[in-house]
């Protein structure tokens, strides 16, 4: 009895620092943000409580809805693009289906080692009206007025950003999957080969089920990363031209720090938190069903 009490006490003491840090830097700011989201500010001064007006304004602002749609696009490219591509690339390297695996491993992993701001500037230099791609196209089309016009379309302006995000982050997932594939006993793969299993059958029947946990963890990364994506988009386009590439965090930043409307910005941050928690819970429940099916 005394031993169990001591155990509980020592658990509590050992957990306390982490708990205090977690409460102070995660829970407390979320709590304060939630409170602030019901207020109106002007010139860094609190004007008063305005109830849910901020939330109504946010959801009736076409600019926010556009930014939300862009975040959804990023999430889709992360879950349906980066993760499958990461699995495929990892599998090619794991099964040594290409030559010079070390070289490809290094080349694929390279983008994630570069800072997002550098990546953004790099791609800017390529696509800008004075960039390499534009100059090349002007040469081959003999059209001195050629520019990449995809940025001028509200429907398509996100495509270059989605492409860069796919290029940049796939490598991280690839490394995670590759590391976990290497933990699958070779004997299982060998046995399957002897039984005449094709590469696609090995991938879909053995490797992917074995990676279910990692795929779930990766999808959590993908969801949370997509909803808070800021650095690359901000450095690459600043949310423009117009607001054709704006995302929720840029919208939040603009309203909070440029217009000093802390209440409105806080409401946006609360929406991002709710969306993150909601989507992660949803993916957990989907994973739970998948697990039950295979148990």
């Amino acid at each position: 009895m005394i031993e169990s009490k001591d155990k509980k006490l020592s658990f509590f003491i050992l957990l306390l620092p982490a708990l205090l840090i977690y409460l102070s830097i995660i829970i407390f700011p979320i709590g304060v943000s939630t409170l602030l989201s019901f207020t109106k500010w002007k010139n860094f001064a609190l004007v008063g409580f305005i109830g849910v007006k901020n939330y109504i304004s946010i959801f009736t602002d076409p600019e926010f809805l556009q930014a939300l749609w862009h975040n959804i696009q990023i999430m889709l490219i992360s879950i349906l693009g980066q993760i499958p591509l990461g699995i495929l690339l990892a599998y090619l390297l794991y099964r040594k289906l290409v030559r010079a695996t070390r070289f490809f491993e290094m080349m694929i992993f390279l983008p994630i080692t570069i800072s997002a701001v550098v990546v953004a500037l790099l791609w800017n230099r390529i696509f800008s009206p004075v960039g390499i791609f534009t100059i090349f196209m002007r040469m081959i089309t003999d059209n001195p007025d050629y520019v990449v016009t995809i940025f001028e379309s509200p429907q398509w302006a996100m495509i270059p950003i989605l492409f860069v995000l796919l290029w940049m982050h796939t490598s991280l997932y690839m490394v995670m999957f590759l590391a976990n594939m290497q933990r699958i006993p070779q004997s299982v793969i060998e046995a399957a080969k002897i039984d005449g299993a094709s590469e696609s059958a090995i991938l879909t029947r053995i490797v992917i089920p074995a990676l279910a946990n990692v795929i779930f963890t990766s999808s959590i990364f993908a969801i949370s990363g997509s909803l808070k994506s800021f650095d690359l988009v901000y450095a690459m386009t600043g949310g423009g031209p117009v607001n054709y590439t704006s995302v929720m965090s840029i919208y939040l930043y603009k309203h909070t720090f440029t217009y000093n409307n802390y209440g409105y910005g806080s409401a946006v941050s609360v929406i991002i938190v709710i969306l993150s928690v909601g989507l992660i819970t949803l993916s957990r429940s989907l994973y739970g069903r998948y697990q039950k099916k295979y148990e």
Partner: protein
Amino acid sequence: MTETARKRVRSLALAGLILLLSSTLAWAGGDQEKGNGKIVLSTYFQIDPANPQYEGHNEVMKAFAAAHPEIEFKHEYATGESFHQKFQAMAASGRMPDVFTTYVGKRTAYITETGKVLDLRAYLDDAFMKSFNPAAWEAQGSEGEIYTIPPSMAVCHVMYANTKILNELGLSFPKSYKELLSQVDTIKKAGYYPVSLGNKDQWPVNSWLLSALVDRMGGKEWFQKAMVGKASFTDEPFVRSLEIVKEMVDKGVFSPGVNQMSNTEADQEFYQGKSVYLIDAGWRTSAMTTSLPQDFQNAVYMGVFPEIAGAVDHGTSVAVPSEGFGINKELADDPAKLEAALTFLKFYNGPEGAAIRLKYGEIPTCKLDYSQYDLPRLQIAYADFQENTPMGYVIDAKMDGEGMGVLNPSIQAMMFGNMTPKEVAEKYEAWVKENDSNRLGN
């Protein structure tokens, strides 16, 4: 644990606590003013002293230190958004520095409009004020307050021309907008771009072109009326100005990708002789004099957008007094510190500081006899430009910043053909009517 061990732990804990407390006290003591009889002023400047752009500022600070050894500074510097974020936090927490950067427009309204800055009018005599360009003393508050002495004027519209290319093509600087449009084919056929302008950051078309067009079409009087709601941004002067911007896009006046090009890229296009004209700010001459070869500098002409049919003003540019230094209102209760801060402001902006800054490429608001100095041709041209060109208002200096978040992207959408000039005007007017502090009176 034995009793002895427990005692040891307690003693160690107590010793640690005492050490922690004493170090805290030592830190707290370290922030006190030095007891060497000097007056210490804390500052917070929107300046990067390591940037060559601020060489003139650094020289003025050195000269001031030599002339006034009784005054000492505790400097803090920041630039860009980080400056404003920390400044807002300072204001909110009531821990304002003694002297700080303030803008004449709305950019530091969170300080100037909340009564935290000293109104300088009572401390500036007529003789001092008369030694400045009168535009420097435009009212900065609703009651005519002067919070900062603008060290220079930020001229936000100049149409630079490469006269070498103009001569080569047998053209001259256009007298009318119609003439500018008629030059486009000749310029393009010769392999040049007509006008470089980088609007990737969204505000350059507004500040450097639209503001000038609005001033031409409506004049200052109309703009003042529109600010307070006695006229509307859906009126002819504003809509026609937007139409001109759109027409310039449609007729290929700008180099391709105007909204994807940064300022620097547009400048480089002009500097490399790829375009005939550059629409930019007046302070760009400072970079031109330091980075361009002399023969190129000699070929640069500084003009303004040509005459527009139906305009009420002609030959005008737009300008706003540049950011300067303000004084914490609380210094009014500390005569020694207040005197020191005023001495600094007068030195920095007055003849002594102005002469030093002039040598580093700035055209100060304080009037100087330029014949006394050996200045580059473009700098003299810029000084003449400031003196002889009537100046209108810069839209984003007069209207609320949040409204620019509505207007600037809408201008881009219009340039892409996704909005009409009328729709842009209606969208902006709707925002101003509901939100702008000029209309709401706060």
